[in-house]
């Protein structure tokens, strides 16, 4: 019964009303959450569905952010081209790096992804002419929303928002579309095959599946969506910095994925939402956010390895059984 409710649609519609109902700050917060939700969901395709623990997923986030940022700021390219470019460039890097990574298994895979991510970080950190080096690239322009104002008089509910709010709507639509695509990928025969590989790579090999090729494809798809989320984040953040590709970012997004629940489609998104809300609550009380985050992580690892989605699933299962028994 609970499964029948179109939760995704309800959340999407509710999110549309954030700029009207909430303050400017809540719009900002919601925007942050939405972008991270996409980033975490893209990682989950690897970690949760394919069983590949990437410790360098921030690389593709950073690459996407730089691709969009450089195109929009330095080349003056429109968002219409600069946004897909984030996905394309991230895909190219993911293809090259992934080619080497999928040849290794388990912990070695994790370390090679980390190593490549550090290389990306080092390039972003040092290549002043292109990436702005250590200082990063501030003042990435917003996409132009003039056309919206022009068509606004003919449409209901459109027009009269601030640029940051228009960008929020744009992010919401794009992320929703990306999540829908990812959902299709996960449900497709290709996605099912990834799960088979996660469960038993040897058996998948026996039945004639080219495991490496599937893993590489998953790596590239995950890279594309991480890149797209990075492209959005650079604009949202009003700047792109080498930090985006640093290894601690990779672990942050892994924590979100774990917190929400790996292997469930919307789990990582929930994890992103909860972690950002928690962060926003905590930093107003104390500067020791890492301490809190680390403690949350330890509790998760030892107490709730299934994350929020896992715990909720177990709870609702128990309630259902009790309801039927009564």
């Amino acid at each position, binding site marked *: 019964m609970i499964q029948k409710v179109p939760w995704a649609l309800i959340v999407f519609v509710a999110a549309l009303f954030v700029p009207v109902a909430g303050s400017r700050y809540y719009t900002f917060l919601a925007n942050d959450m939405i972008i991270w939700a996409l980033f975490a969901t893209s990682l989950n395709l690897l970690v949760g569905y394919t069983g590949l623990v990437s410790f360098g997923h921030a690389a593709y986030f950073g690459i996407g952010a730089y691709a969009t940022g450089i195109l929009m700021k330095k080349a003056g390219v429109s968002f219409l081209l600069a946004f897909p470019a984030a996905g394309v460039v991230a895909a190219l890097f993911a293809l090259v790096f992934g080619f080497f990574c999928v040849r290794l298994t388990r912990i070695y895979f994790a370390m090679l992804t980390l*190593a490549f991510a550090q290389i990306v970080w080092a390039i972003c950190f*040092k290549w002043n002419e292109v990436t702005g080096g250590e200082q990063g690239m501030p003042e990435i322009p917003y996409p132009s929303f003039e056309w919206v104002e022009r068509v606004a008089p003919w449409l209901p509910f459109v027009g009269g928002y601030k640029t940051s709010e228009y960008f929020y709507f744009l992010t919401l639509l794009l992320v929703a579309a990306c999540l829908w695509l990812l959902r299709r990928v996960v449900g497709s025969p290709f996605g099912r095959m990834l799960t088979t590989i996660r469960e038993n790579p040897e058996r998948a090999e026996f039945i004639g599946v080219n495991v490496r090729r599937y893993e590489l494809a998953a790596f590239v798809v995950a890279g594309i969506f991480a890149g797209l989320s990075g492209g959005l984040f650079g604009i949202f953040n009003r700047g792109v910095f080498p930090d985006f590709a640093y290894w601690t970012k990779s672990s942050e997004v892994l*924590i979100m994925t774990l917190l929400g629940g790996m292997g469930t489609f919307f789990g990582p998104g929930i994890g992103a939402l909860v972690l950002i809300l928690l962060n926003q609550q905590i930093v107003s009380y104390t500067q020791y956010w890492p301490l809190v985050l680390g*403690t949350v992580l*330890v509790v998760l690892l030892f107490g709730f390895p299934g994350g929020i989605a896992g715990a909720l699933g177990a709870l609702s299962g128990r309630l259902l059984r009790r309801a039927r028994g009564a």
Partner: protein
Amino acid sequence: MPDLSFVFAQSISGLTAAMFLFLIASGLSLIFGVLRVLNFAHGTFYMLGAYSAYQIVQWLGTGPVNFWIAALGAALTVALLGGIVERFLFQRLYGKEELYQLLFTYALVLILGDVAKIIWGTQQKSISRPPGLTGAVSIFGATIPYYNLFIILLGPAIALGFWFALQRTRVGRFIRAAALDRETLGALGVNVNALYTGVFVLASFLGGLGGALITPMRAIVPGMDTEVIVEAFVVVVIGGLGSFWGTFLGALIYGQVLSFGILFFPRFSIFSIFALMAAVLIIRPWGLLGRPLK
């Protein structure tokens, strides 16, 4: 072309950096070799070693041997902490997925990093060089501080001692056996859990010692943990994870590439290190002296 004394000075500074990195990376490599875990918290143990040494020097004041007492005390403190963490928390994660183990070590980075901030603040701290090693000597026209010479001698000494212990002692044989096949070793009646705790304690000791000994040369600041773990990671990846002499070689290469990289391509020295790591990973993913693992 820079003159020879400058080149010599540069190579000595690279060698000093290499010996520090070896101290730290050998612990990381040891844990990986035996436990098959990339321990992100190893950099944090290094930082805690530095802060502990600072604290002990504060308590003792300056005296002829106080620095050495502080360094040893700091390393032992960190070793104890490592043992407690392994025994009561980490050991519960051995049967689980690698992701959980990796993230647990990252949780330690977050928690202990903030605890250090709470105790010692964010102001940078420093310790002066131990009396007796404050001077410098002139070799080939280059001025080399005694302390650097001491580190350059200490590194190989520890390496040799370590290698001897691994090759010739009973525990060393167990450690090498555990790296190859832990189930069989357990079946032969060796207490593998105790061995793991021992390995963790030893690795933490090395990390803490590295941190304590670097204090006369580098400032103690928050953030030195995440910085050094990346360096140590590069060293073990180049040399070969779990390979003892590989770590030594990796540290030597890292030190020289960094110090001469700064000389010839000042802007791309960090990049040259990572490029080297990438090349090694692509050609020999198991490192220069490592063994391919299935």
